[in-house]
């Protein structure tokens, strides 16, 4: 047992950590926003009147939920150049993460849409509301309430999953841990630092979710 914990050896690498943490944050943030948009599209496809469109939407969700993100990342990273696209590591990671997360987002949003009873659409229309008004004042508030908690979970899941971008050569927090660890032989320390970064990111989301949830939904179900 000759191991003593010391952060001094890895201190020079903290500058790189800042850049890596920014990459993790930016990648996660973009993937969350884009996958909500793509997920909404897939969720609407699953409600389409056309059967082929519905089947396509359902197939998308099943494929994304049953295939490892790592394989999807490799596919995007290696297949894109063959289609004549030169994707940077960041872009490949963003596309892979977004495609995968959209499968989960679609399910979350679909559950939210199901929670609005069909009678409410008719009632709102009979009050003379336009389609946009129905969405804004009737559908959205109820959908939002249903999806609030699972959406928070998915945001955390995307932050954690962004670590796989290290496999397509993006410098983010997990790859910082590995490169600095292997050049300094201080894997315990780099693990602790990386864990703290992820803990801070994920628990901030978690705590913000609880606090905002209390403000938004003062009575009834807590997120």
């Amino acid at each position: 047992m000759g191991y003593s914990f010391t952060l001094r050896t890895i201190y020079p690498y903290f500058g790189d950590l800042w850049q890596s943490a920014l990459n993790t944050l930016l990648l996660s943030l973009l993937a969350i926003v884009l996958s909500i948009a793509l997920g909404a599209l897939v969720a609407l496809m699953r409600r389409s009147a056309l059967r082929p469109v519905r089947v396509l939407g359902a197939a998308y969700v099943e494929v994304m939920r049953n295939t490892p993100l790592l394989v999807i990342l490799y596919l995007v990273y290696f297949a894109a150049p063959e289609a004549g696209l030169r994707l940077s590591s960041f872009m490949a990671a963003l596309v892979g993460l977004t495609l995968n997360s959209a499968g989960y987002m679609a399910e979350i949003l679909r559950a939210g849409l199901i929670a609005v009873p069909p009678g409410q659409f008719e009632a709102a229309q009979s009050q003379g509301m336009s389609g946009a008004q129905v969405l804004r004042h009737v559908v959205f508030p109820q959908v939002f309430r249903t999806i609030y908690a699972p959406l928070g979970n998915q945001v955390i899941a995307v932050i954690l999953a962004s670590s796989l971008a290290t496999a397509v050569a993006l410098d983010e927090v997990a790859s910082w841990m590995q490169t600095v660890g292997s050049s300094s032989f201080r894997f315990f320390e780099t693990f602790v630092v990386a864990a703290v970064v992820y803990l801070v990111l994920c628990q901030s989301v978690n705590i913000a979710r609880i606090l905002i949830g209390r403000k938004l939904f003062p009575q009834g179900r807590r997120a």
Partner: protein
Amino acid sequence: MIQYWPLMLKAAGTTLWLSWLAMLLGAFGGTALALLRQIKFAPLRWAVIGYMEFFRSIPILIVLFFVFYGVPLLLEVDISPFVAATLALALHASATMSEVVAAGIASVGRGQWEAAAAAGFSWPQTMRHIIAPQALRVILPPSVGVFITTLKESSLASIIGYIELTRTGLLVRDATGGGFVPLLALGAVYFVINYAISQVGAALERRLHVGRRSDLVGAMA
């Protein structure tokens, strides 16, 4: 490509074995944690909740790096990629499973505990004969979801050089001169396995009359 199919199928077996072993360890660990949480001693409960929150808030990849690269430096022992992957997957699965098991135990009404106590059952007897059989109904379907997550996460073992399904797919890709067809085949093998397992899970839900598979935190892999 066709000549490599036997290799891919054998690798699928390796992936299944790795995930199954990790899931088994994770289920035992998770059950132990959930039972510890039942004990009315606050520091113990906080410790269990801390463990869960910790593993829910860090990516499994850095746990894998730590077990594979860090633990050998720390304890001066050799750890093979297989052992490292099994351990990391099991640690992660145990945190999720403890929540699944705790929810299962909580689903059994208070009255059952009281009735068992009135009938003179001890705590272990109540757990074993009254609570566990009913809780299992609620625990089984989400466990299938945890297994699928573990199976997908096992692909990360390829990053530390363990030759399972994903690493084999990448090797086949190299051997066949690049291209994305081997990767499509790789994805297809994973999909078939996981889809089949998810159908078993859905059948279980119908048989046991419980709610839909809910994806837990960190389920994306």
